């Protein structure tokens, strides 16, 4: 087990470095010279010599005069030490800039996580137990529709119904503009703003996960030990909730853990539509504003999330299911 984890971690580190080199390469391809952008171009016309001197100084300060390998090493060193660069758009270090968005994203995603699994687990179980029933059929068609629709279409429909036809919820922001209340009032205000993005996020994940839970449950229901339990004369409720459900939870728990890592990630589409000031929206605006230091930092953050998610999912699987042997 420990050897397996060690080996997986080694792979993760390896993949991380390869991807970081790729990302750094892409970052270097960005048109425009950051040193030149720092300087006042008007000097170039009046005093070219002075401008050249300033330019060389700027290059030196940014480390652009060194070979690209050295630049990479110093960049990745800074990254690992927690220095993610400086946002040109907000004029502050990236790490300080993403604090509030991170909080908002976690808030939104945690709420969605609870909702999604609170709905899909019972739904998956019921449809699996009543396989081929009308209810099951309807849910199955619903799930196909659900995972076929892109998030932005679900958003449009939700905005249409819940913000326009019946103006219940606001459609953008985290709080009302100029909101100063504290405590309970603030919580309520945020909850109101969160309703629509939360609804969209939940709806767009329902389809896939319901199918997943249903498939897991059906697999379990076909096991010999379920037949045995029934043969013993146990009541159907006991068979399903005590014998089958617990085993069906194994694959479900693994994706919950995988999702848990995704909580930090945020959704570019949903957050940008609802102007929810989260991680996804930060990436979106940074790209729009060509703020590439933020983009690069976010990109590396996403890579780490994906790798960690995969690792945790695999480990979680063998933690909850003793039958799984890791090679």
């Amino acid at each position, binding site marked *: 087990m420990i050897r397996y984890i060690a080996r997986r971690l080694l*792979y993760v580190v390896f993949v991380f470095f390869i991807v970081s080199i790729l990302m750094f390469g892409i970052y270097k391809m960005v048109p425009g010279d950051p040193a030149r952008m720092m300087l006042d171009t008007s000097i170039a016309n009046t005093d070219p010599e002075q401008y050249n001197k300033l330019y060389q100084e700027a290059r030196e300060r940014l480390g652009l005069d060194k070979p690209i390998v050295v630049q990479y090493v110093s960049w990745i060193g800074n990254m690992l030490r927690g220095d993610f660069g400086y946002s040109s758009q907000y004029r502050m270090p990236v790490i300080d800039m993403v604090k509030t968005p991170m909080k908002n994203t976690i808030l939104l995603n945690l709420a969605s996580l609870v909702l999604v699994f609170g709905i899909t687990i019972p739904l998956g179980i019921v449809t699996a137990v009543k396989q081929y029933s009308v209810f099951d*059929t309807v849910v*199955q068609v619903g799930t196909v529709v659900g995972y076929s629709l892109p998030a*932005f279409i679900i958003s449009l429909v939700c905005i249409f119904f819940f913000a326009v036809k019946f103006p219940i919820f606001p459609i953008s922001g985290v709080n009302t503009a100029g909101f100063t209340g504290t405590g309970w009032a603030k919580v309520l205000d945020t909850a109101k703003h969160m309703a629509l993005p939360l609804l969209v996020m939940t709806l767009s994940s329902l389809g896939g996960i319901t199918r997943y839970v249903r498939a897991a449950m*059906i697999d379990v229901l076909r096991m010999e030990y379920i037949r045995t339990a029934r043969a013993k004369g146990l009541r159907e409720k006991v068979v399903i909730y005590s014998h089958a459900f617990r085993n069906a939870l194994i694959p479900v728990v693994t994706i919950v853990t995988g999702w848990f890592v995704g909580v930090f990630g945020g959704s*570019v*589409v949903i957050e940008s539509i609802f102007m929810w000031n989260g991680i996804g929206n930060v990436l979106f605006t940074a790209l729009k504003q060509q703020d590439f230091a933020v983009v690069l930092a976010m990109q590396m953050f*996403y890579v780490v999330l994906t790798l960690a998610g995969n690792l945790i999912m695999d480990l979680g699987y063998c933690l909850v299911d003793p039958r799984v042997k890791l090679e």
Partner: protein
Amino acid sequence: MRICAERHKLLWWQNSPRRQRSRMEMTMRKKRNTGFFRNLFRGLFFGQNTMDPPVIEEEPVRSPMRMILIQYRDNKVAMTGLVVFVLIFLACFILPILYPLDPSYQDVTQQNLPPGFSQQKVPRALRQNAKQIDAGAAFSIGIDQNGTVYLWGILDDKLKAVPEDLKPVSQVSAGLSHVLALQEDGTLRTWGNNRFSLDQVPESVQGRSDIKQIEAGYQISMVVTEGGELFVWGNENLISIETGKVQGNVEKIVSNTTTALALTKDRQVVSLSAKESTFDAVPQEIQGRAVDLAATDKSAAVLTEDGRITVWGSQDFGVQEIPQKVQGATVAIEAGRSHFTVLLKDGRVVSWGRNNFHQTDVPAEAETAASIHAGYYQNYVIREDGSVASWGLKGYLMGTDDFGRDVFTRLVSGGRLTMTIGAIAVIISTLIGVLIGGFSGYYGGKIDNILMRFAEIVGAIPFLPLAMILSSIVGNNVSELRRISLIMVILGVLSWPGLARLVRAQILAEREKEFVTAAKAMGIRELSIIFRHILPNVVTVIIVNTTLNFASCLLTESSLSFLGFGVVEPNPTWGNMLTGSQASTVIVNFWWRWVFPALALSLATISINLIGDGLRDAIDPKSNER
């Protein structure tokens, strides 16, 4: 009957009961099952309608592919998906040929018009009794012999608000979004758009009863009196005209979206544009002989005493190619935004110029015309008996967007682009996935290890952010075509790891089988063993995966384009047609701008996913237990 109902219930979602029941039951069921589509499908693909084998006889051996087809055919949901997808596919690849898209086309006068073909629905009461008609941007106004006013087409509330105390009217004129009406007592009324005080008659005109001609133009109103005086009010920033040089001498005034031209009492034509314009170059030979005048957006035409037409200005859309038969025979001329319509002595009507909305396709019933009335993209003819004929733009099937472009044309062309991008991306990703998965699975060991680490690296790159970064870095300074190809490649190159892993696992299972050993023993090349002997055994899995991948590629491309990092304006895709639709004004007031693209995209992805699911069920009998 009851069995039948139960069967339908079972067959609705999936087709497994067929395999679970005894053969006898199956045969019985088959005999009853002779639906229309079933026969049609069978007739199309399997020749004649074969009889089912009797109960005792052995079922004939069928090839796996044929088995899959039969299984698939029985799955009604999947078949519905297939039919829907084929329809969408045909629509997206045939309709753009019939309705070609001009990406650079824009038209401010046609912005945000709702779907419908009401623009030439002349009210019944006016149809046999018309006196005069004038066409506005998306609506028309007409008066009958009694002086009653009728409005039709796309009318907003302000246009519908016809003054209640309106007296009988002798002359009407329709502009972009407002109306002028001259009452029989000689006083002027106006309503519609209330910006730039277009809804009020200025004081200098209010008292007058000697108005001869009225002209409602592009956010501007003009009036000519018997004495040749010209009054102008409205948005004079947009149309800046100088009235000084002709004041007191005006016979007729015509306007377009940029300027106005006047015909003077001494039969001269004067361009009133305050700025330099193409209209200034009035041909000298017609001065003093002009009797009628008309102006499109970029050209003007004058009719001289001898019935001849002279056109000057821009040559776009063939407006200067005057048909020979009109020369010397014309009695009246009218113009739309980019076409001319003339009335000949013998009552025939001829149109030429731009034909994008069939505004120059004069119908047969327009012969024997007494008067012609054209404006924007519409033409009306009133015959001797007061009956009306019309041609030109009738409306838009799915409305127009904020640039005045037809949503329907963009939808089908956008669909073609979306599908092409999705298909090519999927082909790229399938090729890479199969190659890497094949080598990895067959060779194993070091090669497997390296290739799978590579797949892991690609898989670890978060998809949407990277695609956004790449397209924003590389995409801004390349041509549109290269940008689109770039998006295809990015989509394809980043989405193969899943398939590679699947193919690898399948090949791992297959390579230990005897036929591979036999092939090796016969000395067949390894490449050939992998791709000609093993691969056909896993091809079904690849097909299913490719189908489902296609749907997700459509979704990813749309999301990218929606966010503005994929295909950008003016090229349409289903994704970028929805950009900006989340604004509540668009959602409520201009529903046609988002409902149709959203519906098309949803239908396409849902039907593809249904096909993929159906194929998987048909190929792998075990999977549809899930």
